[in-house]
């Protein structure tokens, strides 16, 4: 399969402060790729290099086999980009911005734009200054998708969108992906990445910790459980990261839910909370792995 995005040792320093360090990514044509990491991990820096907004300190990045620093114009013609912070010329109407975007691409996308506005429930007659964050995001989506790009680069696309629109948005992305487009999206919401992406890369403090198929990122399925009214946990399987918290215990559980509920029902609990683990906890797992590797090498 042909590679759509390929970076080698991609590094960016802002002065002395770290942006990203030796990022190696390889994303195949037609993939649905998720890029996850906490805020400030380097997701946007990587994306901004790919789009030619900033230049790398070291390393190379290619899109469709073209160097991003040398063939920017040709590359950008094939990309639809949605920035994480969506700002437009606020004195203009949404429809005018969408038209401007198409004109800058020298394309007539009027019918596709109208269809997207309809599906996302966006009124193109409204002025940008009157739009909420979510509605500005919709303008951004239309601008990124109306020209049917080969590659969609979406930087935290769903933050600020309501659940119904999120669902419609992912439906559109699935359709585009099925039609052959490559989707590259960054997020810090694990569940949406898990649900839609086939491959995932995890970035933290500027470094790629893991890049693999979603099914191999097994620990993503873990639940975080907090129980109150007890201070020690009986022996249970699939439990890790056990921590004492105020009046109870918190741990990560990655086994079967029914087994968990059965075990918990035997305990004198006063309160219980089962949530998605935050990324910190998932990353911790990768850190542990890294350390283990080092230990082995040193031993």
């Amino acid at each position, binding site marked *: 399969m042909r590679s759509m995005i390929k970076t080698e040792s991609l590094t960016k320093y*802002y002065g002395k402060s770290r942006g990203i360090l030796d990022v190696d990514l390889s994303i195949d044509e037609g993939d649905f790729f998720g890029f996850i990491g906490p805020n400030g991990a380097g997701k946007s820096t990587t994306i*901004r290099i790919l*789009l*030619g*907004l*900033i*230049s790398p300190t070291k390393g190379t990045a290619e899109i469709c086999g073209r160097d991003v620093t040398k063939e*920017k*114009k*040709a590359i*950008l*013609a094939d*990309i639809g*980009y949605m*920035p994480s*912070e969506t*700002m*437009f*010329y*606020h*004195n203009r109407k949404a429809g005018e*911005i969408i038209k*401007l*975007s198409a*004109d*800058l*691409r*020298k394309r007539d996308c009027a019918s596709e734009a109208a269809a997207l506005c309809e599906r996302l429930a966006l009124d193109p007659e409204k002025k940008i200054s009157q739009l909420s964050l979510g509605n500005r995001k919709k303008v951004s989506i239309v*601008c990124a998708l109306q020209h049917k790009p080969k590659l969609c680069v979406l930087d935290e696309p769903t933050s600020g969108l309501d659940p119904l629109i999120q669902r419609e948005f992912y439906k559109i992305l699935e359709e585009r992906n099925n039609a052959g487009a490559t989707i590259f999206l960054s997020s810090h919401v694990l569940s949406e990445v898990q649900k839609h992406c086939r491959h995932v890369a995890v970035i933290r403090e500027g470094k790629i910790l893991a890049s693999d198929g979603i099914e191999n990122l097994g620990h993503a399925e873990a639940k975080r459980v907090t129980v109150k009214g007890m201070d020690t946990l009986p022996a249970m399987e699939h439990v890790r990261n056990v921590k004492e918290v105020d009046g109870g215990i918190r741990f990560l559980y990655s086994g079967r839910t029914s087994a968990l509920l059965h075990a918990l029902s035997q305990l004198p609990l006063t309160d219980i909370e089962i949530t998605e683990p935050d990324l910190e906890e998932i990353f911790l797992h990768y850190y542990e792995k890294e350390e283990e590797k080092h230990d082995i090498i040193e031993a």
Partner: protein
Amino acid sequence: MILLRHELRQGRMPLLVWTAVISLMLGACVLIYPEMKGQISEINSMFSNMGSFSAAFGMDQVNFGEFTGYFGIECGNILGLGGAFFASLMGISALAKEEKGQTAEFLLTHPLSRRQVVLEKLAALFLQILILNIAAVGGSILCALIAGESPEGEIFALLFLAYFLLQLEIGAICFGISAFISKSGLGMGLGVAALFYFLNLIANLTEEARSLKYITPFGYTEGADIVKSTGIEIKYLAVGMVLLVAGVVCAFHRYGKKDMA
């Protein structure tokens, strides 16, 4: 061309306001000339007897009894300074406003080269300055006819040409600065225009500071000199045009490899 059109549209309001204010003030100055002419001997002696103050504004060298002399000085202050402020404000924000307004991520992720962005924004800036000047010239001529004065064509043309070039130069210098900043540089822009203006005043005051006229574009737009010699001082103009080109080159060079904030 799309970006050029977009820029002109985005700058419509400031262009309209500055053009209206400058043209109206110019027109008003021309229209009150017949009134002034009646008291011309008093004005002439007053203006030429204020010592260094007269010298600073070049009023000691020009006869206010002639319409052209009067216009050269008044026009210099309104179109020269007003136009300089307009050009500096539009120039300094031309490139930087995309980063300040966080629209750079939108604009620069379209298939446009940075060079093309700079080129179209520069063209829009120069076009806006041209529009303002055409309106100002048209308004002045119209008002002169209404006031019953017939201005001397050649001197008039030279004055307007000099002011136009001054605005292009200041606009281009500020445009060059704009490529280096990512915040609002409006204060800096006004500062540049004001600094040039005051440098010329200082150059008029003392012989030792005369060489400052090479630096400031107000050196070659001195109304009094143009009226007196029916020409633009080429040595000052040449340096000015070098600065204009330097501003443009800086903009292309810097913006081409700038990391967008």
